[in-house]
């Protein structure tokens, strides 16, 4: 099969969906003429024109807020928040408006909004351009939260997101844009709430998302050399969260390591660990472990940033701890 980069897979999903449904429009900073700061919206303006591909001023509250109004009035906005770090200037429109409207209105609203955004460290972009804030998004009833790790997942999940009638936060880890993988040409969907077992194994379950899924797979390779068989589970969506697949894996392996790039304290890992122990405490042969960033802002210097980001070595070490 043909391979695409993660960014190309997203771009293809956008184009295919926009061709299918004229009520979809794209808006955000530099999404048009520039084609998106990471190139994900490249070529859209040329194909779909200014009405459907809207360069906005620097005005995140109005970008997301106008998506809320447009969606309530029948359109299907796909808006870009250039970095998830910027959500603090616009979060109200996401959690108090988009996510709650349907409920507050007694069910009588439909908010098919996708907010695409980037997260993550690795580019020395420092404390305000490198965060992983998916845990905040998870804690918002009414939202769905998508965290793809491969080009294949990225395309299928984005198409699902665009067709979903609820507000969806679609988080793209910036270090993944360049990775390649096989991607079917035709449009396809991947259901939300279905974790993907990226590697089967029997000794330990490693749950990891986005860039960390790749590190977990690398760690699994290394651990295989030591005779440790690692199952890598990628939840793919955090809301809804496929606890069942994770629990089933733990029931098989009896050990759990959860990896994320966000800081540990208050992160998504707590939710995953808690969900597993609530359902499968007796299956655990060792205390679960979380591998996550230390409780600090993201440092700039490459030396420090690499210490900050959970490494393959740390995952290997954590797995070794739980299997012994």
């Amino acid at each position, binding site marked *: 099969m043909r391979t695409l980069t993660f960014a190309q897979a997203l771009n293809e999903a956008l184009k295919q969906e926009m061709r299918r449904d004229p009520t979809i429009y794209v808006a955000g900073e530099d999404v048009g003429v520039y084609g998106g700061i990471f190139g994900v919206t490249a070529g859209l303006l040329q194909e779909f024109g200014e009405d459907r591909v809207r360069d906005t001023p620097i005005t995140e509250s109005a970008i997301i807020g106008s998506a809320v*109004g447009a969606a309530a009035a029948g359109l299907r906005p796909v808006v870009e928040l250039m970095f998830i770090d910027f959500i603090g200037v616009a979060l109200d429109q996401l959690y108090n408006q988009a996510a709650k409207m349907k409920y507050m209105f007694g069910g009588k609203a439909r908010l098919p909004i996708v907010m695409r955004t980037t997260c993550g460290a690795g580019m020395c972009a420092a404390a305000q351009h490198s965060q992983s804030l998916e845990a905040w998004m998870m804690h918002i009833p009414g939202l769905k939260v998508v965290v793809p790790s491969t080009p294949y997942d990225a395309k299928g999940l984005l198409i699902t997101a665009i067709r979903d009638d*609820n507000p969806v936060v679609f988080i793209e880890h910036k270090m993944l844009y360049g990775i390649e993988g096989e991607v079917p040409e035709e449009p396809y969907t991947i259901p939300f709430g279905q974790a993907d077992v990226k590697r089967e194994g029997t000794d330990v379950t490693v749950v990891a998302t986005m860039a960390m899924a790749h590190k977990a797979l690398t760690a699994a390779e290394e651990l295989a050399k030591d005779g440790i068989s690692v199952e890598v589970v990628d939840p793919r969506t955090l809301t809804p969260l496929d606890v069942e697949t994770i629990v089933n894996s733990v029931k098989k392996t009896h050990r759990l390591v959860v990896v994320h790039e966000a800081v540990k304290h208050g992160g998504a890992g707590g939710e995953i660990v808690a969900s597993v122990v609530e359902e499968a405490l007796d299956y655990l042969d060792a205390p679960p472990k979380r591998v996550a960033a230390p409780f600090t802002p993201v440092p700039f210097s490459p030396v420090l940033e690499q210490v900050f980001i959970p490494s393959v070595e740390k995952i290997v070490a954590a797995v070794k701890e739980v299997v012994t």
Partner: protein
Amino acid sequence: MSTDTEKLLWMYTNMLKIRRFEEKVGEFFAAGKIPGFVHLYIGEEAVATGVCAHLRKDDYITSTHRGHGHLISKGGDLKLMMAELFGKRTGYCKGKGGSMHIADVDLGILGANGIVGGGPPIATGAALAAKYRGTDGVAVCFLGDGASNQGTFHEGVNLASIWKLPAIFVVENNMYGISLPQTRSMRVQDIADRAAAYDIPGFVVDGNDVIAVYEAAGEAIQRARAGEGPALIECKTYRYRGHFEGDPMVYRTREEEEMWRAKDPISRFETKLMEMGVLNEAQAREINERILAQVEEAVRFAEESPWPAPEEVLEDVYTV
């Protein structure tokens, strides 16, 4: 004034409807039958009325925490509203929203809003949808003087301006944001002056004169329908009640209140209509009674309606 009789009587009736509905709400709040925060619009009826007199069903509005007047003016059903205020399952939001979140998307009412400044970006988006679909629909955003200091106001208006969207921002300047007088929340005297920052027209009108509101809104809405972009209308008005029911109102004087009551939008308009020969005492009485009956019916409906079932708490979070 060329407004036809029917429209004039609709405006009179609508203002009275808001007034009587809310007086009843105040009573039931005091009696402990309506819980939560309730912000009454009494005294400001001319604003929503004069603006919404121009709106069609396919136009949109965004409202505020002080939303009953907007909803009624856009065609909101008194029974469904009252039931919602009571927290009953027959209410507009099945009891999930309450006063601050009543909406009727089918009527183009995109919701009251508990977040001050929540509306402008949303109205901008609704206006975008109208334009995107090639209709001549408009979106009206109601907001307070206090809300015009919020960053979302600046952003919403600016976006509507550069995209030339059919959005009309109606600032209900009732002189206070809770306890803070407008004079202490901004240095400009007229909020309409802020329109210049977005190169859109700004109007200042007497918000207690429904005809003045009607005329300014007519101009702004006509421009918007014709594709000429947004406008800002500042209506100077006053709320008679506290910020919310239960407010001790330590921050203003009784003299100030009296001064404004003397400019009551409803009695002024009533007098005018009588002078014009459009209304007489008997008709006025008849209209009033009809409204009171409607309000009573709404109360009865609300009181007799069932509570939501406990398990309903889990419904309506997601569209499936």
